[in-house]
């Protein structure tokens, strides 16, 4: 079984992202399961960052912190990440020599052979390729497509640089590098959470997105803007997040599916808009890519600290959908489902991701596009005589039309309103309108998916997790079960409304969350009246991984 973890480290601006991406892409194209994630400082130059890649010949999609290989482009990074190297791990280094150290003068080669130290990172790509035993031709293909827009000369220089790195590393590899990755007949997708969300939104017929740039959510509008002509989506960089959500609501009122995206601080600015969508019963999808708060927090790192904030976002009482996909394939489907449910129930829908899901590259075997069921829930104007946008009936779902669609007037008000959408102070009517809106929530509850159970039968201790940590948690379960520990897991991806679900009282429940206060535990206590024995929390800005979970479970 192949399971290689590596750390590519250096300072911002040295191009470790390029190294990581080329290598991850090459391994993926060779038919391997690849998971890659990054942790970096909020700066453009300097500091010390890492790009982590895990390559396996079976599905994983979760980080593994302890590395088999450490490549550092500078001394500071080597010192920082050395503690994460396994005891029998291998170092690739510019200067150092020694046992289990492969000396590749990245900068030296770049300067000597190419008279440009910018090629150092591609020399590193080649060196790493040699260490993990990847076919150089596959590597060259990816390098070509990566640099093709810079012209023929740059492409061939980069291929030559990689070849030099490969050759140099290969010489020292003998006897210490046992890996070999021959091409397997398997074709996976390598995709980030943000890209999958953008694709899922497009697949669901989203035609409008407005957003204000904020890490880690910016990738969604970037992708849609880049491909606007093919996808026929109007995108706009709004002046602030308040404008962004209001634009999305305006577009939806005008008759198209629309969305916005932000992170904690920007989402905070959108909260009044979410309440507006609730009151005017305007469908809208909002992606909240979480990062550690409060306030500006750690802008480039990960956390699941906004669960209860998302659940409670918006003043007043109104129905809302909150989904937290576990990986890009799930994100693709969840956002499409959110668009359809938001339109059906005329409500705002929040998709909770985090920096870990948004930026990491996951392996997807098949997107199962056919499972996306798009349906328009707009009413037929010809069957309506006396149109009332907020007509009261037993479901709470009134007929939705858009302005200009027919002779019917579509009137929406953020004030409490009558059936026609006109402002009212009729307090009896107010009561009925509140009940109408809340009725939709009860109907919606029946459409919510149950949490995913994993190794639950016979388990005495059960992890409960949500969102992007699924694969790490399930991997921890597998590992613990190898040692006869009776553990299982329950993973939630649809968090508001919560489905009807039975927790068995004899089991010990532990929530596993990337936050400090165990927010899912609090939510479950309110919704299901269950007692959570303990919270396994992580709030240092890094994603959960199996080792951390196991350590905290066994030793507190």
């Amino acid at each position, binding site marked *: 079984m192949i399971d290689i973890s590596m750390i590519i480290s250096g300072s911002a601006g040295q191009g470790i992202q390029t190294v990581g991406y080329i290598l991850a892409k090459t391994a993926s194209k060779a038919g391997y399961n690849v998971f890659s994630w990054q942790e970096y400082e909020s700066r453009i130059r300097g500091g010390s960052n890492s790009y982590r890649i895990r390559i396996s010949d079976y599905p994983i999609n979760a980080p593994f912190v302890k590395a088999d290989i450490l490549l550092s482009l500078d001394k500071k990074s080597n010192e920082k990440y050395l503690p994460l190297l396994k005891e029998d791990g291998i170092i690739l280094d510019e200067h150092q020599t020694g046992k289990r150290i492969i000396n590749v003068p990245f900068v030296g080669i770049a300067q000597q052979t190419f008279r440009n130290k910018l090629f150092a990172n591609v020399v590193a790509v080649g060196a790493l390729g040699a260490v993990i035993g990847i076919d150089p031709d596959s590597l060259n293909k990816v390098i070509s497509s990566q640099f093709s827009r810079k012209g023929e000369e740059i492409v061939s220089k980069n291929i030559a640089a990689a070849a030099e790195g490969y050759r140099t590393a290969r010489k020292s590899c003998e006897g210490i590098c046992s890996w070999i990755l021959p091409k397997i007949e398997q074709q996976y997708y390598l995709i980030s959470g943000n890209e999958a969300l953008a694709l899922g939104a497009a697949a669901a017929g989203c035609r409008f997105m407005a957003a204000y740039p904020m890490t880690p959510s910016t990738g969604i509008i970037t992708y849609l803007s880049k491909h606007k002509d093919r996808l026929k989506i109007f995108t706009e960089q709004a002046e602030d997040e308040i404008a*962004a959500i209001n634009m999305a609501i305006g577009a939806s009122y005008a008759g198209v599916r629309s969305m916005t995206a932000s992170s904690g601080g920007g989402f905070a600015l959108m909260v009044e808009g979410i309440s507006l969508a609730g009151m005017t019963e305007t469908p809208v999808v909002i992606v909240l890519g979480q990062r550690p708060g409060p306030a500006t927090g750690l802008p480039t790192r990960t956390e699941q600290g906004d669960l209860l904030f998302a659940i409670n976002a918006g003043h007043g009482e109104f129905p809302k959908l909150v989904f937290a996909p576990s990986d890009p394939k799930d994100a693709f489907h969840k956002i499409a489902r959110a668009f359809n449910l938001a339109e059906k129930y005329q409500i705002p829908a929040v998709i909770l991701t985090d920096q870990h899901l948004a930026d990491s590259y996951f392996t997807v075997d098949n997107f199962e596009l056919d499972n996306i069921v798009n349906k328009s829930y707009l009413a037929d104007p010809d069957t309506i005589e006396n149109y009332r946008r907020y007509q009261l009936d037993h479901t709470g779902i009134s007929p939705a039309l858009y*302005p200009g669609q027919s002779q019917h007037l579509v009137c929406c008000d953020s004030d409490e309103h009558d059936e026609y959408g006109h402002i009212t102070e009729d307090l009896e009517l107010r009561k009925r309108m509140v009940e109408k809106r809340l009725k939709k929530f009860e109907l919606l509850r029946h459409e919510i998916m149950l949490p995913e159970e994993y190794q639950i039968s016979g388990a005495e201790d059960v992890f409960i997790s949500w969102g992007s940590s699924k694969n790490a948690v399930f991997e921890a379960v597998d590992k613990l079960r190898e040692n006869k520990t009776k553990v299982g897991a329950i993973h939630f991806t649809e968090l508001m409304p919560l489905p009807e679900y039975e927790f068995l009282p004899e089991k010990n429940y532990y929530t596993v969350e990337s936050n400090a206060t165990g927010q899912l535990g609090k939510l479950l206590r309110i919704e299901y009246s269950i007692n959570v024995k303990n919270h396994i929390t992580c709030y240092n800005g890094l994603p959960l991984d199996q080792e951390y979970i196991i350590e905290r479970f066994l030793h507190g």
Partner: protein
Amino acid sequence: MVKLEDYSSNIENQWCPGCSNFGILTAMKHALLALDKNPEEICLVSGIGQAAKLPHYLKCNFFNGLHGRALPIAVSINIVNPELTTIVVTGDGDCYGEGGNHFLHTIRRNPDITLIVHNNQIYGLTKGQASPTTDLWDKTRLQFEGVELEPLLPLATALLHGCSFIARGYAGDIKHLSELFLEAIRFKGFSYVDVIQPCISYGTHTASWYKERMYKLPPDYDFNNKGEALVKTTEWGEKIPIGILYRNDKQRRLFGDHFKETTFNGKLTELGFPPHKTIIEMMEEFR
């Protein structure tokens, strides 16, 4: 042909009896009538405040949203359905205070919508606090010793940021005002009319204070001249000009023109769901 009664709404009006807002409402109906716009072809967008209630009193489509946020709503309605006549009805607090950022950036975008600001230089609905246009040292029910902030010059601000149609009207001169509205709605691009609307309950100035100072721009005033317009848009106090202060007849590109040329020319609502083929092609790029 549309009739004036077609715009009549049977909703109880919540404005103070005798409020000058009624004049604005009448002027707007007359402008729409002159344009022969059916109620379903019109979409009014408003925020919060007394002015923002106007859509309830004129029969048409409307979205009465949040305080200060009418402009971003109107911008996207215009993008999705450029055939609708989209008009924002707002006040000085709503547009220049709470929504000031959107005012600036909507001017930069130049969407084909009309902005009408009921400017009474005071917060009426919250009972008499200073607005961004209250004059220096005017006393209010919150600024007891007078306002110590310089008033905003919204018309000059609009001019400096490239707004192509800038007018000021008076709520008490319905005929003149409806002509301004007519010109503004007809104008291709972002058109903006600031309306002097004396507040009879909390205003720091009486209607006669305004009347003594207001004058109509003479027929020989060249509203295409930006330099002249800068003088007129900053003129306030002793003399207050009304009429079209600036108009740029060399049409600026509209917000959405680029999208129409490069991506899709039509109503976005016509697009429906994307073909699977497109999504599959995009997916394959990740292999």
